[in-house]
């Protein structure tokens, strides 16, 4: 079944995407560049989570994998989001090194260039070397900023797995297929079908680099979908698919710079504390699995810095409009987060010195050897040294 599905996918992909080709010059240029050794993966442990449900003593039970990883990494006790407390602006601030104040719901690109653009332009890295894989379905413009001297030609591939899943599930429900979404094959068929018909329709940006590679992209994504749908646990969330796609991209393209945006814990808006806690534990598990992949993948092992941080917290239990449900009050539980840096060259320890979300971009620039101009953030020396 799996092989057949894949073959069918490849056939369809070959027919439907041959005309969507990146200028060959761009890809050829990138391919000639020597592969530098260091890689950076930024994980937004996301959707909004408070210290009290993570690294506060009462929250540790929700994050067993991070607790296990922490002794091997640099743990920054205070990482502050001093910007706008929306998911898009917060993540944009992490990726640009400047506090973003654009449309909260992703209707505008970040106002200043992202690290993806600086990285690709200055190093000549190819289009498959920078990826943003985001559960948040409003992140379609997060891969590049509004600055016309850089912009999308140098941006990241942006993949929005949840949007794809949403379209597929809607398709199954609409068609009233046998057993509906309870039948995993139904969902898989719709996922494949959407990929075949053109993923741009679900808000993705994937730089085309020739028909053959494009086919590889699709093959990679489909493989992730198959693994997701047929995994040992009943798949249910966008973050799980985000993980599977991120892992597949790492295995196939080994990008040097990648954002993995988890978002399931924003289910807190529904007003169910138990669902929020479950989402935190799931994100913890997926983040741990990502670290496992880094450790076991020779393209990443010993050369990757993994930076894990929540993009924002949530309102406190006291004096806020409705506690954990929201994240706009601006009180300390919304702004005061943590940062865990793992991997290549990172010295274990706990650091008291406060750092900021915008420092992540500056640090990434130093790690990958490019300059990010005119940014507010400062490199975090404890990670670099």
């Amino acid at each position, binding site marked *: 079944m799996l092989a057949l599905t894949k073959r069918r996918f490849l056939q369809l992909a070959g027919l439907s995407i041959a005309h969507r080709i990146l200028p060959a010059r761009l890809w050829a240029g990138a391919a000639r560049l020597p592969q530098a050794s260091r890689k950076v993966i930024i994980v937004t442990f996301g959707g909004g989570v408070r210290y009290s449900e993570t690294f506060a003593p009462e929250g540790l039970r929700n994050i067993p994998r991070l607790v296990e990883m922490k002794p091997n990494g640099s743990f920054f006790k205070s990482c502050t989001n001093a910007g*706008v407390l*929306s998911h898009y*602006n917060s993540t944009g601030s992490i990726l640009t090194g400047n*506090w973003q*104040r*654009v*449309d*909260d*719901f992703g*209707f505008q690109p970040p106002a200043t260039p992202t690290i993806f653009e600086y990285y690709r332009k200055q190093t000549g890295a190819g289009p498959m070397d920078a990826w943003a894989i985001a559960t948040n379905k409003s992140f379609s413009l997060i891969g590049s900023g509004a600055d016309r001297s850089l912009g999308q030609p140098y941006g990241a591939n942006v993949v929005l797995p*949840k949007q794809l*899943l*949403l379209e597929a*599930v*809607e398709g*199954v*429900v609409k068609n009233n297929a046998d*057993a*509906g*979404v*309870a039948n995993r094959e139904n*969902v898989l068929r719709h996922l494949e079908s959407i990929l075949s018909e053109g993923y741009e329709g679900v808000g993705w940006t994937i730089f085309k680099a020739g028909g053959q590679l494009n086919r590889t992209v699709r093959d990679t994504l489909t493989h992730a979908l198959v693994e997701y749908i047929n995994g040992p646990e*009943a*798949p*249910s*969330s*966008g973050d799980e698919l985000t993980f599977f796609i991120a892992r597949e991209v790492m295995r196939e393209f080994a990008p040097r710079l990648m954002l993995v945006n988890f978002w399931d814990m924003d*289910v807190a*808006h*529904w*007003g*169910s*504390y*138990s*669902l929020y*806690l*479950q989402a935190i534990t799931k994100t913890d598990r997926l983040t741990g699995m990502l670290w496992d992949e880094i450790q076991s993948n020779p393209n990443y092992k010993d050369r990757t810095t993994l930076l894990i941080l929540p993009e924002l917290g949530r309102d406190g*239990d*006291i*004096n806020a409009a*409705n*506690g*954990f*449900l*929201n994240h*706009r*009050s*601006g009180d300390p539980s919304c702004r005061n987060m943590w940062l865990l840096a793992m991997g290549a060259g990172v010295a274990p320890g706990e650091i008291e010195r406060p750092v900021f979300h915008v420092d992540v971009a500056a640090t990434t620039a130093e790690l990958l050897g490019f300059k990010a101009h005119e940014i507010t953030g400062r490199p975090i020396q404890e990670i670099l040294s």
Partner: protein
Amino acid sequence: MAGAAKLSPTLQALIDKGLFERLPATFSTFFFEQIQEWETLFPAERSYHERLFSLIDQSDPAAVEKLFEPLRRIEQLMGVNEKNWPRRHFTLDQVDFLNRSAHYPEWRRAISDIFARIDPLLEQEMARKGSARLAVVIAPAELPVSPDRMWLRIRQHGKRIPLQPPDDVADYLPLLLSGAPRKDGAQTISARYALAKEPYAAWSLEAGSGLSDLGASGALVALSYERLHDYRTRLTSEVMRILKAEDIRGPRQLLAKLKELRILASEGDVGRDPVLAEFTRATLLSGNGTLLINNTFVEWSTMQAVRRARPSVTVVSFGIRNKIKPFTSMLIYADQDKSSPIPTQMDTLGTYVDLEIFYQYIWQEFEKYAEYRHNTAYLFVGEGMDELLAIAPPDFPLLTAKQPVPLTQVFGTMKDWLRL
């Protein structure tokens, strides 16, 4: 929609004499917009607005200027001007303007400081007029825990009272709330209070229909998630239609789009009262999961009722939340039962976790307001349980109980407390 002409004479006079023009724009415009909805405001809200602006008007002008000076300074830094902040129209653009400003945290602090000075003055009057109040918060019988695992976040503020539950659990709520078994059909404490007092003084908010089944008087505000099914369904399909057809940036924009989608009289009793109809619409479309999860609706409508209507008697009854089915969580505005053939299952453990934090939020919300502090008895009850948690002033008689108390006695104590 109410217009300025229907404003209270007190406020109209203050507007006419230019009070709102003299106050900082971000402060006065918000309130100006609020009072344009005069016909759909509760009496407590109307009273608050009148008292607030009368106080500002009657205060020493130099003191008022000093109070608002920090806010004026921050407005300048933010670049608030006539163009981006028209004086008499508060829109979503202004909300975005505030949210995105680099000075937003300072602005919030300045607003908070203003109310920290004003509220105690307004509250003195409320405290002087204070009378005994009651809040009963009921957990469903299906919770898989015993009383020693209940109310963990707030129990240190109160006392666990031993109870004598009836043999038949079906009589538990009737005995507690009406002092008589179900077959007697006696009036509940909230219905009695509603009949005896002013409008909107007694509320009953529930996930299911257990409270409604006990009967209600017309004066009681009764909101049931279950009984709002038809309205919820209509709202849900309308939300889905709009989300499909238009680019909606967020919940606030959605709420503005659905401003006119009021509950019909055929969809619930609250549809007959314009104030409650608007309250119900706003609660269900707040973007806080109130359309989707029964207990979120109960919690948020309670919070809003306390904030806006300040009821004297509030009975809140939670239910059991269903498990979220695989994949259907993606389709938040779709009917979960139709989307998946997997049988619906109750999530009793998840509900227990959800409610533990809601007890805290609800109790805290009441205690924010002078009307409730020092004179409110809060009874946290688990249907069928042989204990309740009472948080109450020291003179609340139940606090001295040494032996298990019959539910009829709890009812009697509540009735006496409210002087009914």
